[in-house]
């Protein structure tokens, strides 16, 4: 079988399974920013590949089909509004892991975006994808 991972966020040639995709709410609040940064950190660390939530929302064909081919999906939401989770559900995706940053003890509007907070979320996210 041929498997060529050609670097972060670059297409891979088909092998036995689809990609592990990470969607972050990337919302306007501090916890949304942490979600975004944690997803990028997880991509850098190889836990999965951050993918385009907006593309799923916009039903962009390539993004939809790629998401359908995913072997694992993680949605990271900053807060209880669960925008990423709800968007994926509305797009027809039901089988995915979900991480809510406020469940980790971080308060919306009161959490600094730091190496520590990003790392904590990234670590929790990676554990959900194992």
């Amino acid at each position, binding site marked *: 079988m*041929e498997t*060529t991972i*050609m670097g972060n*966020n*670059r*297409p*891979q*040639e*088909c092998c036995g399974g*689809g*990609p592990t*995709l990470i969607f972050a709410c990337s919302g306007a609040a501090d916890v949304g920013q942490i979600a975004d940064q944690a997803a990028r950190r997880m991509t850098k660390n190889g836990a999965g*590949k951050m*993918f*385009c939530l907006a*593309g799923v929302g916009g039903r*962009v*064909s*390539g*993004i*939809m*089909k*790629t998401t*359908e*081919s995913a072997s694992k999906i993680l949605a990271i939401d900053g807060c209880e509004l669960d925008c990423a989770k709800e968007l994926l559900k509305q797009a027809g995706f039901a089988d995915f892991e979900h991480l809510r940053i406020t469940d980790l003890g971080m308060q919306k509007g009161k959490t600094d975006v730091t190496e520590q907070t990003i790392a904590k979320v990234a670590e929790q996210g990676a554990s959900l994808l194992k």
Partner: protein
Amino acid sequence: MKKIQILGTGCPKCKKLTESAEAAAKMLGIEYEIQKVTDINDIMKFGVMLTPALVVDGQVKVVGKVLSPDEIKPMLI
């Protein structure tokens, strides 16, 4: 004319998908053009993370697998 694009760098699965797509088009008797997109940067413009992929008239139909001509036919109508 139906525009069919195969996204992939030229692996055996890409070639197989191309053959299936062409066979499907011929079975339907439609006018078509097949374009192979092999440049990674061009492939990424479709929002695709897995190849091979089949694109019909600009819409991504299949990602990461090879389909038979019979499976592709409905996508060309």
